[in-house]
């Protein structure tokens, strides 16, 4: 029966403490960062919006890699990593989807516009929301294989999101941003903080997969890969 590795118990609290401290520090830096001349204080949204977007892309990238590894090895741990990373990235993507319009209202005088980056990111969000809906509706091994296929196919949209501001005209997202060294430092700390937070959250989410697998091996095969309320 799979038991949660001991290093999870050791590393988890350290990661949580470090990431929460760094996130709090990045909020404090954001509060003290210089106020941008044109946009005013609302520009400070960038210190949580951009790091969350990067964490989203990395999270879905890890889902992609783990999905390939699962199909190649059929080892449940890869499926567990893919699903865990995907869920954490989904929350990050939701943060991006909420903070973006708050920024847009001030910067572009509209909550939403169908410009390339926004449109492709919305498609990304819908695709990965579909990943979770489909995964929750399937059982055991079919769940894992179908999830892995989705994790690979949906990844195609990531480079499109990344390159959208170059490939299409009419993008409101800037290609280059001029920042003071203080602003850039705040953004870098924010990125480090949310990367660490992503790692802590994914490790935490993996514990559910471990318990579900242990439960399945103990005599409830339907619960394999079906953590929480999703078990059939």
């Amino acid at each position, binding site marked *: 029966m799979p038991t949660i590795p001991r290093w999870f118990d050791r590393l988890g609290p350290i990661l949580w403490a470090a990431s929460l401290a760094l996130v709090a520090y990045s*909020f404090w830096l*954001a509060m003290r960062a210089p106020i941008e001349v044109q946009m005013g204080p609302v520009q400070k*949204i960038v210190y949580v*919006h951009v790091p969350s977007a990067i964490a989203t892309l990395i999270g879905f990238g890890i889902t992609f890699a783990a999905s390939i590894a699962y199909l190649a090895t059929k080892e449940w741990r890869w499926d567990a990593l893919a699903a865990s990373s995907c869920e954490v990235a989904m929350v990050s993507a939701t*943060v991006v989807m909420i903070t973006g319009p708050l*920024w847009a209202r*001030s910067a572009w005088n509209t909550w939403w516009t169908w410009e390339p980056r926004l449109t492709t990111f919305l498609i990304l969000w819908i695709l990965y929301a579909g990943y979770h809906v489909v995964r929750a509706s399937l059982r055991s091994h079919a769940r894992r294989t179908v999830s892995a296929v989705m994790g690979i196919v949906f990844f195609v949209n990531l480079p499109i999101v990344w390159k959208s501001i170059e490939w299409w005209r009419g993008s409101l997202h800037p290609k280059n941003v001029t920042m003071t060294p203080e602003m850039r430092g705040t953004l870098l700390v924010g990125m480090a903080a949310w990367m660490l937070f992503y790692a802590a959250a994914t490790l935490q*989410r993996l514990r559910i997969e471990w318990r579900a697998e242990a439960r399945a091996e103990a005599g409830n095969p339907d619960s394999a890969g079906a953590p929480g309320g999703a078990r059939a």
Partner: protein
Amino acid sequence: MTYAVIAYLITIALWFLWGVATLRRERSLRDD
């Protein structure tokens, strides 16, 4: 300033809710 504060509060709230849900899911699997 209001929008920036709202953005940060929503970020904290979302992650807090996810954290609570995740801990509850793990506990329910452990207790079963």
